[in-house]
């Protein structure tokens, strides 16, 4: 049986690292995921952190998880070009097992600002996404994957997300990071069953699973009067552990299972203890559950058959205008109702975005997220 490597999302963050030190001391950490593009303003990565990354890299246990590439931006940008150059140089220095990014486009007007939002699931967006994944693969020269998004504007989108990811990954022979807390958010926010969703995901392409905690925000109109948000700032819910135990056996190519939590949720000793308890519970599930590996589905190395021919980046001027209009509305609306009013008279009305079907409570959530991250993490 092939081994699953449990690990942690570990950035240069004192709280995460201090929570993880006892696990590192006990040789409990089986892999590290590093968001290599999160340090773009920091000039010097300390030697000890580089050493930590390098040690995991040499053992084939370091994965790279990008945040800011904005795969579905419909206009190619010089910042994306720079991001790829950075990745190309970094990949020559440090060996990642694979590189992944997030689904969606960033709402911020400037690179490194905003939050990822979903896009219409059309052939036009599919072409953009596939083009960007090929460019990432060309830069890092290792397996490339994408993570399912927690946020969705409407239930229809939630039901189509898995199939769309499947179509997106085929041209690059990419893998899926299945974030189970993201799936949990969608189940709760649209009152959809796990079984109704999971069957649509390409589980034979899941190489990595993420689990994390989050928070509830009151939202009138939402199922149960609240929206689940993937804030990564609390312990992992029991239901997400159950999802993990149910999902692992169905993923024949699973290699990594990672716990994600942000530093702001790991400030007290109690929070750090709970993080370690969650981690060890995750490890125990990884050890106890057997994967149904069938010969036909297992053994994908997620590398493309050959080099890609990469002409000019795929762009879509109208989609870009729509993305810019949506970002502007979300970043400036006073709330969900105001955003809905603005959308009704915007260039997004009557388009594949189907803004007419977006419930107000999710628009309200989108407004909150876009405005929270409008300035990135600058104070």
């Amino acid at each position, binding site marked *: 049986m092939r081994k699953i490597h449990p690990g942690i999302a570990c950035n240069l963050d004192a709280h995460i690292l201090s929570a993880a030190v006892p696990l590192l001391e006990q040789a409990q950490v089986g892999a590290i995921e590093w968001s290599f593009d999160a340090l773009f303003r920091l000039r010097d990565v300390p030697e000890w952190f580089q050493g930590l990354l390098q040690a995991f890299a040499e053992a084939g246990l370091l994965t790279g998880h990008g945040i800011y590439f904005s795969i579905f931006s419909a206009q190619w940008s010089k910042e994306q070009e720079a991001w790829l150059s950075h990745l190309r140089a970094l990949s020559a220095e440090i060996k990642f097992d694979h590189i992944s990014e997030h689904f969606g486009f960033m709402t911020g007007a400037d690179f490194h600002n905003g939050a990822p939002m979903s896009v219409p699931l059309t052939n036009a967006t599919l072409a953009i996404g596939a083009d960007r994944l090929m460019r990432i693969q060309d830069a890092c020269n290792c397996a490339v994957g994408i993570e399912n998004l927690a946020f969705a504007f409407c239930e229809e989108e939630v039901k189509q997300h898995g199939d769309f990811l499947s179509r997106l990954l085929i041209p690059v022979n990419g893998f899926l990071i299945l974030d189970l807390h993201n799936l949990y958010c969608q189940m709760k926010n649209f009152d959809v069953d796990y079984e109704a969703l999971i069957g649509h995901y390409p589980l034979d392409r899941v190489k990595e699973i993420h689990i994390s905690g989050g928070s509830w925000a009151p939202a009138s109109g939402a199922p149960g009067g609240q929206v689940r948000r993937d804030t990564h700032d609390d312990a992992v819910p029991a239901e997400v552990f159950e999802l993990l135990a149910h999902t692992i056996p169905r993923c024949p190519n699973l290699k990594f299972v990672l716990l994600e939590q942000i530093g*702001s949720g790991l400030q007290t000793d109690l929070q750090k203890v709970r993080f370690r308890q969650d981690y060890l519970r995750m490890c125990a599930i990884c050890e106890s559950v057997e994967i149904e590996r069938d010969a036909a589905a297992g053994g994908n190395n997620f590398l493309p058959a050959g080099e890609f021919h990469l002409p000019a980046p795929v762009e879509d001027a109208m989609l870009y205008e729509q993305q810019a209009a949506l970002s502007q509305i979300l970043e400036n609306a006073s709330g969900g109702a105001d955003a809905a009013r603005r959308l009704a008279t915007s260039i997004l009305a009557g388009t594949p975005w189907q803004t007419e079907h977006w419930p107000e409570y999710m628009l309200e959530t989108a407004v909150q997220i876009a405005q*929270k991250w409008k300035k990135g*993490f600058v104070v």
Partner: protein
Amino acid sequence: MKLPKNLLQAVIIGVGMAAATTACDKVEVTTSDCDDSCKKEKVCIHEIRKQAQYSCPACGMG
């Protein structure tokens, strides 16, 4: 994974030092990162949160 003893020690010391620092870093950024208050300058100094307080929007629901 078992880390070499000297690396583990360096990590423990490094993390301890990072955790003890709470002030903001002042970091030079190029004008493309500036807002209206300083975009006329060639090089500006912005205060940004230390990585110790870093969080990210990656999940899309944060």
